[in-house]
């Protein structure tokens, strides 16, 4: 399975529905995107996921850090 948002192959099953076997939830370990098996195709299908919200996994490390990590104070 491919992540619909970042196209990585790092998708895991996060959980099954607690009751009724109604759906499964998946998560991408590269970009933390998660989705449910019962959602629309434009959420689940990498080709149909809105391009404005696509993420390049190579660039994640360049994103802003909030809040910034402070200098460590040695004891």
């Amino acid at each position, binding site marked *: 399975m491919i992540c619909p*948002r970042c196209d990585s192959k790092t998708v895991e099953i*996060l*959980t099954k*529905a*607690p*009751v*009724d*076997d*109604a*759906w499964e*939830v998946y*998560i991408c370990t590269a*970009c*933390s*995107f*998660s*989705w*449910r098996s*019962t*959602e*629309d195709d434009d*959420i689940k299908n990498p080709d149909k996921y*809105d391009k*404005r*919200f696509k*993420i390049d996994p190579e660039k*994640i*490390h360049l*994103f*802003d*850090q*909030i*809040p*910034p*990590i*402070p*200098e*460590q*104070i040695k*004891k």
Partner: protein
Amino acid sequence: MEYKDLREFLVLLEQENQLLKITEPVMPEPDLSAIGRAAPDLENGPAILIEKVKGYKNSVVLNVHGSWQNHAIMLGLAKDTPVKEQFFELDKKWSSYPLKPVWVKDAPVKEVKITEEINLFDILPLFRVNKYDAGFYLSKALIVSKDPDEPDNFDKQNVGTYRIQVKGKDLVGIQPLPFHDIAIHLKKAEERNEPLPIAICLGNDPLLNFMSSTPIEYAQSEYDFAGALKGEPIELTKSEQGNLDIPARSEIILEGYILPRARKIEGPFGEFPGSYSGARLQPEVKIHTITHRVNPIFENLYLGMPWTEIDYLMALNTSLPLYRQLKRDFPEVVAVNAMYTHGIGVIISTKSRFGGYGKAVAMRLLSTPHGMSYSKIVIVVDEFVDPFNLEQVMWALTTRVRPDKDVVLIPYAPGMPLDPSSEPAGMHTKLIIDATTPVAPDKGRDTELLAVPEKAAYWMNYLKNLSKNQKGE
């Protein structure tokens, strides 16, 4: 107050015809967010209890704060109380601060305790709030943390609302913005490379959610304020770990700790300005314990293009602290309406002591802790203009403003990064529009206001009764 917790508040809302129950099963997507969008658009903006969500065990409640009627009932007022009156009632109750909490035994939130094989989806009917959110979010949680330098200082304990992205069965992301109180706690913990214990509280007394999104001072306790507004102490208990004070009557508590000195991708998330935030690197929280009531109700918040529930939740609680901070130095200030996008837009009504007074009051607002970063557009109107009545405010703008003298820009000041017009994110140019009538030594053209005819109050009452009788009420 007639309610002690969320459950009792829902009973009260039902008695007041401010709660609807959906009994047939609904899908998590797209039904829950669609229900959350529709509820505040209904004429009376009721809360909606969804009893069965497919695949989940527990019920969901949405739009608990999503109308002026529900807001009035939360404050113990008649549901048809006008907004300006709710503002002044809130101001009265505010004066009872601090009303200290009590710690109780047998807290209902401890009825069930889970420490092994935690799976948030087992307890929480999670759903996507807006279509391009990065995942499933807790949008109405109350997060408790302590100052690591002073773990016994109750007043410096913080109770705030920060967005939470579910990233695993026992892992979530959190957004502490640098100007939020929890960021002070996190900075101190990270300087020592220590985890920061937190409690994520869900399904709370509506006044606790109200206070957790109120910009009060660092060393003021949200619990003491909520007690003041309630007129009785909030009931607290201790967390299982971390020595945190948590609400005893909430539906669900997720206990965990922020992993120090690490940032992972979080977002985007549809935010209160009505647009998506970007994706950023933010801290993560490991959940080690869940306690909850039997059959817990999951409360969450849909936020969309304003107005939705969040706009009611962050309206008067943004206005009142700003009003109080201005009033302290400028007693002429009559009221502050900071209801627009958490105070990005503010309307102040004040009498002018001397020429230029309106501008001075606006500049003070822009140097308050909240106004400094959030507020971008400040409109100042005369003391006889109701700042909660936008028709009156527009009258003041159209008939009082001299654009060459009364409009001021302050370039490149602190800003609110979630405002998409903040550029770069976190910088604002401030706009002040002084729509007050000039007083000496400033000089405007002579103008005489139209007065209300005599006996207007008598005829208003007469016509109201006539209208009621004709409707057969």
